[in-house]
């Protein structure tokens, strides 16, 4: 069942890239957010990817015996970045401190846009891999005709 499990490898890549794009759009949407549940301005989020390959021989044997996914990628966690907030002088703003400065998130929209392009290209590459695998499965099925 090598080819079918390879399909789930590509699917794991697609969902990881989609989560990355989701977090990046969240960053873009919150580029001007001054209030969060934790207090203070919004902090930029980043996704940490980890390869889901079997780390030892036991894992590999278990994965092949249970026909589950080995290989592929998982989005391990979403981390908050410690970028320095930007201070803007807006005395009329409700979130201004006693000197009249408001803390805005240190999100650089250009950075997020470039990352978003990377996520979309990565997603496309996984889609191409999946369609190549699909063609291989199809030609195997055609052997029965």
């Amino acid at each position: 069942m090598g080819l079918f499990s390879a399909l789930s490898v590509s699917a794991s890549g697609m969902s990881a890239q989609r989560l990355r794009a989701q977090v990046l759009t969240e960053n873009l949407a919150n580029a001007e957010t001054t209030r969060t549940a934790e207090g203070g301005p919004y902090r930029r989020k980043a996704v940490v990817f980890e390869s889901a390959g079997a780390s030892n021989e036991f894992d590999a044997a278990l994965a092949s015996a249970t026909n589950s996914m080995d290989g592929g990628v998982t989005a391990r966690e979403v981390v908050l970045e410690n970028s320095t907030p930007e201070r803007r002088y807006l005395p009329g703003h409700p979130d201004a401190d006693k000197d009249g400065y408001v803390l805005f998130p240190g999100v650089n929209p250009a950075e997020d846009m470039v990352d978003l392009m990377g996520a979309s290209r990565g997603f496309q590459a996984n889609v191409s891999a999946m369609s190549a695998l699909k063609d291989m499965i199809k030609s195997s099925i055609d052997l029965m005709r």
Partner: protein
Amino acid sequence: MLDPIANKLSQYMDLLSARQKLVATNIANVDTPNYRTQDIDFASALQSAINTQTPSIIERDDLPMKTDGNNVSLDRESRLLAENALRFNMASNLMKSQLRMVKSAIQEGR
């Protein structure tokens, strides 16, 4: 299964699908820090597959490394993706002609 040729063809197709899976894994991990490209040494793996051994997976260290310690090249993987699919197609067509011969024998050449 049918005869030695069909047997070798099926081993070749098994090996191609194992390699295609590695290519898919590499593409899925294109943004994973410290991930190294995985590959099968195809020629020697084919030799050992004919002697019914499982292919061994190697990590490629001869590819240019990115700053995050990842060395997956999308260009290389796309090429391998297409190459494997074509090789598999060819092997499955050869297998089809083998099966057709058997079928023709069953149908007494009709």
